[in-house]
């Protein structure tokens, strides 16, 4: 009863007209922003934050919640249609979304992405409502050694992706880790691999990297493919939305794991939705009866990725609102929004401004729900028309969109050239069979792994080997061993049995 009464108290304020308008407007802006490479939820909330100064705090938070949830789904639209992840979290959505679009099922892929995003966001909001105070205590137990092992666990999960060619997969991961270490090192600020370029000192922006890596190679490959280059069009194949909704039970198991990862990672400061997508995708692939179909247009891959990256939306806000520790960059901006409106994150927030903070939790739920009609009717149908554009015209459009996306990150022409360089790197990798996904994960997790490794070593003043002896570390190491050793052993046993049969 303690849980529901503050929620019920906050509900009337949430359902006022200005609030509903702010949420709908926020979701629309979020979808548009998320679908444009280079524009992220973080950036758009930050840009629009000054507009909320004069607003009622709850109306402002409703708009932010809408942008956040809208953008996390919007990122899937270009990921599916053009293989350009609109947001870092949508990288994994490209794996099966783009092949599905190439098979003429773009409409279906978008519907799965939409439903997975919406349900992921709603479940995440419920977790925030129910688990925020007790779960936030768990994060206090995660120090640098534990976060280091979480990062290593993430990289090990990539090893499962590698599948066919282990050396090439590992090499891709190392390329990602190398790109991630360019710039000033995270502890001593030593200049590493910048070759005197000031622009590189702050490191490689993940948006610049992924726009280059994922947007330019398909353009070059599409242009090379002369048979498809002129006049080829792709079918969208929208099936009735209700039919897709009826398929939801098929994805329950995948969504459950994605949900678990989303909540767990969302609680860890520094980790992000993109990491959740990788974990959820890897799990879905391992659970599948047909793992070989992943990466070739399996809708379960989209469901895992999109549910995962939305499941941490509200979860990432749990440490923000309860402890004042943002779990992600978006959470940091939203925390700024709370502070602007005189709301100090921490336990007092739940006592002194219960109507606002519980209202915000309801808004996180409602904006995910609103996503279904708005995303289904407006964005999906509108943006899916992109695939009707003839390829010779689509190629320069993607290139120009990539240019503006990379430029907008830091208003830097250097970043645009960097993006083009990564595009050529992605082309070479694609042609030589090096997977792109481990590069992206290496860049995301590299700085997290390194800084926590070095902090752990600095903390280990009494030489107690804290990286290996702390209880949570031991659990994570055990999980790591199980994840990396068991699948190949199990595969070997199955192969022997098959031969014997």
């Amino acid at each position: 009863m303690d849980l529901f009464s503050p929620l019920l108290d906050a509900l009337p304020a949430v359902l006022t007209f200005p609030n509903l308008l702010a949420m709908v407007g926020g979701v629309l802006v979020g979808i548009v922003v998320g679908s444009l490479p280079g524009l992220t939820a973080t950036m758009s909330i930050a840009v629009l934050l000054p507009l909320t100064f004069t607003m009622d705090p709850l109306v402002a938070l409703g708009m932010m919640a809408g942008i956040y949830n809208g953008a996390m789904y919007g990122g899937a639209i270009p990921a599916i249609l053009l293989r350009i992840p609109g947001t870092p979290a949508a990288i994994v959505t490209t794996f099966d979304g783009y092949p599905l679009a190439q098979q003429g099922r773009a409409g279906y892929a978008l519907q799965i992405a939409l439903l997975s995003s919406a349900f992921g966001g709603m479940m995440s909001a419920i977790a925030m409502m129910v688990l925020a105070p007790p779960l936030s205590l768990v994060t206090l137990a995660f120090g640098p050694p534990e976060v280091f092992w979480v990062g290593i666990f993430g990289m090990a999960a990539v090893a499962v992706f590698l599948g066919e060619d282990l050396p090439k997969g590992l090499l891709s991961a190392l390329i990602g880790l190398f790109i991630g270490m360019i710039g000033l090192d995270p502890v001593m600020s030593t200049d590493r691999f910048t070759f005197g370029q000031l622009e590189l000192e702050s490191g490689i922006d993940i948006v610049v990297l992924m726009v280059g890596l994922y947007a330019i190679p398909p353009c070059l490959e599409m242009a090379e493919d002369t048979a498809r280059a002129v006049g080829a069009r792709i079918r969208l194949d929208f099936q009735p939305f209700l039919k897709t909704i009826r398929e939801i039970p098929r994805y329950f198991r995948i969504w459950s794991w994605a949900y678990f990862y989303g909540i767990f990672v969302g609680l860890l400061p520094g980790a992000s939705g993109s990491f959740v997508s990788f974990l959820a995708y890897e799990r879905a692939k391992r659970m599948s009866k047909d793992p070989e179909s992943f990466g070739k247009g399996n809708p379960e891959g989209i469901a895992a990725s999109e549910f995962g990256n939305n499941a941490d939306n509200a979860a990432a806000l749990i440490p923000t609102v309860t402890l004042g520790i943002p779990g992600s960059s978006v959470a940091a901006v939203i925390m700024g929004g709370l502070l602007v409106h005189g709301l100090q994150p921490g336990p007092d927030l739940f006592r002194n401004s219960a109507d606002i903070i519980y209202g915000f939790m309801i808004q996180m739920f409602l904006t995910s729900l609103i996503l279904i009609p708005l995303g289904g009717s407006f964005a999906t149908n509108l943006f899916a028309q992109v695939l009707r554009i003839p390829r010779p015209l689509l190629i320069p459009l993607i290139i120009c969109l990539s240019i503006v996306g990379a430029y907008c990150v830091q208003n830097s022409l250097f970043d645009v050239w960097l993006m083009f360089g990564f595009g050529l790197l992605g082309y070479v990798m694609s042609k030589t069979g090096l997977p792109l996904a481990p590069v992206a994960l290496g860049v995301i997790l590299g700085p997290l792994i390194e800084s926590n490794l070095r902090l752990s070593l600095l903390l280990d003043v009494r030489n107690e080997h804290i990286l290996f002896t702390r209880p949570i570390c031991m659990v994570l190491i055990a999980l790591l061993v199980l994840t990396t050793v068991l699948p190949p052993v199990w595969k070997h046993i199955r192969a022997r049995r098959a031969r014997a049969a």
Partner: protein
Amino acid sequence: MKSIHNDVVLGTGVAVLAALGIHRALGFGADARVFPLLVLVPAVLLGLVIAVRGHLKQRRTGETPDFFASPGRFALVAGGTALALIGLRYLGFLTTSAVTIPVLAVALGYRRPLPILATTAGFLAMVYIVFIQILSRPLPAEIWTRLGGS
């Protein structure tokens, strides 16, 4: 002329670049060099493994997969993009896009003026409304604004 397997070029290239990286990393401070070495040393080894494996595969099968499916079209798009990036500094984003989209589309074999013009105009309008008007992102200055200002 005997061709070289793609993996031999890839592996050798990675091994050489990673070795150069190690040489550079050895010049960093004691703490700052640890992680780069943990990454680059295995990269050298993996590069060599991939190169040797590619060489053995080529000897066994005699296959040398083509790298480019169509070198001319690759050069067209890569060169066109590079020119657009150069133009960006001098012409501005909207002008560069207004030139790049139709020129590349025609060069790639699409010859229907109306869809090209309509798509280009639609793209420029979208960028102008979303990036410039709504989000106030400062894109590279257009040449006409600089000419008008001087």
